[in-house]
């Protein structure tokens, strides 16, 4: 039997790694990869709690399903923005994204 805390620790590790990717990487696509890791960590948490705490109520799974949709929407729009930006500025460096700076 795997205790609940193992899943949570795994999820915490994945989340921290994703956070590190988001903070440390310069390439915008790499930052997006980090965000995907973080979303997955959240999903592991949700499913683990669903299974260990309340398998009769589907809230946990429904939440994961919604996270899937949000992740896909985020990836689609995010990557479209990155590509558009790359065309405009010739760079995918997130630090260069300062078009709104006055």
């Amino acid at each position, binding site marked *: 039997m795997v205790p609940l805390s193992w899943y949570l620790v795994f999820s915490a590790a994945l989340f921290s790694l994703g956070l590190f990717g988001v903070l440390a990487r310069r390439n915008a696509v790499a930052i997006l990869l980090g965000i995907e890791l973080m979303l997955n960590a959240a999903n592991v948490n949700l499913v683990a709690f669903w299974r260990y705490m309340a398998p009769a109520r589907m809230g946990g799974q429904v939440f994961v*399903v919604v996270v899937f*949709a949000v992740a896909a929407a985020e990836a689609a729009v995010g990557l479209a923005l990155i*590509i558009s930006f790359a065309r405009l500025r010739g760079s995918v460096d997130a630090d260069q994204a300062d078009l709104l700076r006055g």
Partner: protein
Amino acid sequence: MNPWIFVGVFLLVAGALPAFALLFAKYLGPRRPAPIKSETYECGVETHGPTWVQLKAQYYVYALVFVVFDVELVFLFPWAIVYARLPLYVALEGALFLLILAGGLVYVWRKGALEWA
């Protein structure tokens, strides 16, 4: 028994079989490396310029539409299983879901993003 144990073993074997065959073939065949042999093949012409040709932006638009339609499955498959046991409005909910997505397809079509250029 959790049926996924079976699936896991099955997939492992399904991957291991070709992998072993590849290893087997590697030691069965001759090995006489030569620089000419391992050159990039382009119908006899020597290769020029960087290999990483740019992806056509048009492919990306198809991938975008595909992702959106793929994600709807997450919602449609559970719906497809249960709608026959529930009142009629459930079937209509699913149809509405599909119609909203079809609206997206119509938009992309009208914008001309589906045209092969």
